[in-house]
Structures are given as structure tokens and as C-alpha cells.
């Protein structure tokens, strides 16, 4: 099974970046010694914080620049604020963030409805392309969902009686 049916040395660029000095390689090789100065380096100017930014407890200050997309809000925001009371080492940081993300998805639907927008979830999930490229798979999904729904409904009906 050896790959000896072609001369790999003819591949364009083969061996061009061989460098015996390149060991240990990245990310080890450009060490400057500045790490011992810790955070004493030339800092960029600070971006003003005009929205709520949740800061890692493992940092002393905000980074000089940061993103201002989707500040925390609603119930998901409450959960995120709780998460950011704990370090990145803790499950109580990450698990609440995953929960907050799921809550946030429902908040997004509620916000859409409040704004008079009915979210087109099928379009958002790209079902047009599913229809175009995977019609058989889509049919299978619809049939399976339909059968499961019917079974569930008939079970609930029987239970009600």
C-alpha cells in the first residue's frame, strides 16, 4: 500500500520549505523574553465601552478593543451575567452560557413576533437548498416526523380516554 507509484518530488514546491533550523517550530520559535515583563507593554488606546461588555474574571481590565455586537439582554442576559462571575476554568461559566444561548434563540423568536415579524424558520434553515439537492432526504424526514407525530397523538388521545 506504499505510495510509491509516483515521484512525489515532482509535486510543485516539494521540499521548498524544509528548514533544519525550524525546530522547535511555531509556536515556540520567536520567543523574545518579553513575557517576563508580563503586561508591561505599549498598550493601544482604550476603546470606550458604550454598551455592556461582560469581562472574563481572568483579565484585570477590558482589552483595548472589543466587539459590541448583541449586548446581553433579557433572561439570557441575566444568565450570561451570572456566568461571567466565574472564571473560564469553571463549568458554572460555560454551562450557563450554553443555556443562555438556547434561551436567547427563543427570545429572538419572541422579539420577532413583537416586532410583527413571523420568522420564516424553514427559509432560515435553508430548506430551499434541501428541496433542490436532497429531495429524497427531505421526503424521508417529513415522513418520519409525520409518523412519529401521528403515533404521539394517538398515544395521547388513548391516554386521555
Amino acid at each position, binding site marked *: 500500500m506504499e505510495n510509491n507509484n509516483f515521484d512525489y518530488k515532482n509535486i510543485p514546491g516539494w521540499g521548498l520549505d524544509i528548514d533544519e533550523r525550524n525546530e522547535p517550530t511555531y509556536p515556540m520559535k520567536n520567543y523574545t523574553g518579553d513575557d517576563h515583563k508580563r503586561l508591561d507593554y505599549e498598550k493601544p488606546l482604550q476603546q470606550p465601552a458604550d454598551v455592556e461588555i461582560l469581562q472574563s474574571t481572568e483579565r484585570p481590565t477590558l482589552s483595548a478593543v472589543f466587539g459590541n455586537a448583541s449586548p446581553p439582554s433579557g433572561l439570557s442576559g441575566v444568565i450570561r451575567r451570572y456566568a461571567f462571575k466565574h472564571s473560564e476554568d469553571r463549568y458554572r461559566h460555560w454551562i450557563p452560557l450554553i443555556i443562555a444561548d438556547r434561551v436567547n434563540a427563543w427570545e429572538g423568536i419572541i422579539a420577532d413576533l413583537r416586532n410583527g415579524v413571523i420568522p420564516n424558520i424553514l427559509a432560515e434553515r435553508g430548506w430551499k437548498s434541501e428541496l433542490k439537492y*436532497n429531495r429524497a432526504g427531505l421526503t424521508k424526514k417529513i415522513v418520519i416526523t409525520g409518523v412519529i407525530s401521528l403515533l404521539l397523538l394517538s398515544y395521547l388521545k388513548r391516554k386521555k380516554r
Partner: protein
Amino acid sequence: MNYRGPYRVRIEQRPMPEILHPEDAIVRVTRTCICGSDLHLYHGMVPDTRVGSTFGHEFIGIIEEIGPLVTEVKIGDQVLVPFNIACGRCNFCKQGLYGNCNESNSMASAVGGIFGYSHTAGGFNGGQAEYVRVPYANTGPTVIPADMDPDDAVLLTDVVPTGYQAAEMGGIKEGDTVVIFGAGPIGIMAARCAWFFGASRVIIIDHIDYRLEFARNYAKCEAYNFKSMEDPVVFIKKITDWYGADVCIDCVGCEAEGNALQTFTGKITLMQAGAATALQWAINSVKKGGIVSVVGVYGPPFNYVPIGNVLNKGITIRANQASVKRLLPKLIEHVQAGRLNPKGLITHKVPLEEIADAYHIFSAKLDECIKVVLIPSTKS
């Protein structure tokens, strides 16, 4: 682009981004890609991915506006923008660790800022948009050479540097056998780049036949489907004379298939930060004293990996987000000399307006998709 929750994205008109820092620039996006790692966000695998965020860390465009302290680029420049947001002057940037900048992410200390990659990576809106705010415009944006095809340029923002660095971190020696897990765009590029470092044998492992066929042709490597093997680790041992590969590279990350326990704990119940199957196979397939290079993306909490074997085999693990800025001069040279053909990876060009379909095609691997480029209507 507006993320609405797992598996849901849509197009929406948003306010124009503004200069928020004197070193910011505003870039009008002309090409942007969906990265395999965007799918981890799309699938809801990365904590603190907020509804309303715009994804996209692979983009090129034209500088439309600059802050008062921007001197390295000017309005009208056509630039490619590395996916890392890097200040260029902290200790980490000065060491070439542009993916580990200490001044671009307030929300997590482990990773530097990344465009459009959740609040865990800084909460920046990304480039799957008509316009995007680009911080530290003196460091990141690089003017695209006049003779370079924009389709090549956009892949120099992430795919090419990440694939190249995956091979570089493997410390490949002349004559080495290199095994790459994952035949997505990054894995295919890593396979192609492994030859630059003198590999004598490059093997790629995946479970999707059309991708394996693509990799075989594009990267001139051997390609095998792990679903046709009883045990991928034994298979690799066997084809390396029962020695193990010299270098193994994980280009899959947290959504790997192939191991029921990893899938159940990592993808179904989220008891770990994704399924670490590829990393497990890499550790177990590499030779004693070998090197495992990791560029596949994992969530932050933790993963189940055979760390005992790392100790017992004396394996070196090297990993990092690609240091795009550091690698660009060399990679631009490879592209201009015709040694690398990044645009050969592109299989789909889709208007930005059809982003929901584009994500679904890429995620569900429909229509033999390898790489999707999105074209905003404001490109010209």
C-alpha cells in the same frame, strides 16, 4: 447575516458599522467565505454565540473609512483581512502569535479576538455582511497584490494559513509520513502544504467519498474512508509498517464522526466540548515520540482524549489558531509562483442574500460542496 439560533440564519438590513477606535477601519466586503469552523457556531456548539450576531472571519474588501491613527492602509485599498484581530504590540503579537493577542478579547483569556466568532472570541461582528468594522487596521489588513485573483486572496485570510501552519507545526522532516484527519478545506490544504516540508507520503482520512476524491486530486495524496475500515488506528499502523505515522494532524475539531461514545458525549449530550474522535485517533496513530498538530476547533470547556498515551508515547502536541499575518508573505509568494492554487477549493459561489441556503448546503454537504464563497451585492 443574522444568526437566529442553531441551524437558523437570515439576511437583514443593519446599521452601518462605525469607527469605534482610532485604529479602526470600515471595509466594504467584496468576497467572504463560510468556514468549516463557522459550522460549529451554526450548530450551536460554541458557548456565548448570541442571537443577532453576524458570523464570518474570512473576507476581503475595500477600505471605505479609516480612524485617525490608521497609517498602514488608505481609503480605496483592496485588502485581505486575517481572521485574527491583533494589536501587533503585545508580547504575544511580538512573538508572532497573532492568534493570541492580549488586547482584542475581553470575554475570554484563552483566545484572541476573531471576527464573527461568538462572544467567546470577542463579540465582534463578522464579514458575512456588506460592511464590517476592522479593528487594528495597522496590523491586520494586507493590501492584495494587483495581480492576485480575489478568489485566491479570500482564501489567504484563513484556509491557506491554517492548512500551512498545521503542516508547519507538525515539524515534518524530509521523508516523513504525514496522516491528516479531515478532508474539509483545511485538511485538504494541510495535505497540499505537507509536501512543502518534504513529506514522502501524505495520507488523508475522512468518511465522505466525494471529499476524499477531491483531496486525492487536489493534494496529490492518498485518501481513505474510515467507514471502510474496522479500526482506523490499526489501519494506519498497518500501512506504516506497524510503526505509526511520523506526524498526525487533526483538521476536524469538535464535530467528528466515527466513535459512538465520543459522538454521544460530545455532540448529543454535550458532556464534553464536542466529539474529539479525530484527536483521539491522531494521538493513537502517531509513532512513539511523534508530533500531533491540532488546528481543528474545539469548544472551551474540556474533551476526553487519551492523555495517558501522550505521556507513554512521548508525543509532542502543537496547536494554535493560525498566525495569518506571520505567514502571509511566504504564502502570497507560493500563490504568485503557482505552487498553491487556493481558488481550486471553491465549489460554490453564492449571493450573500442566499446565505441560509449556503449554510445548509455546506453543513449538510449537499451538491458535493467543499468551499462556499459569498458575494455581497455591494461588491462593485
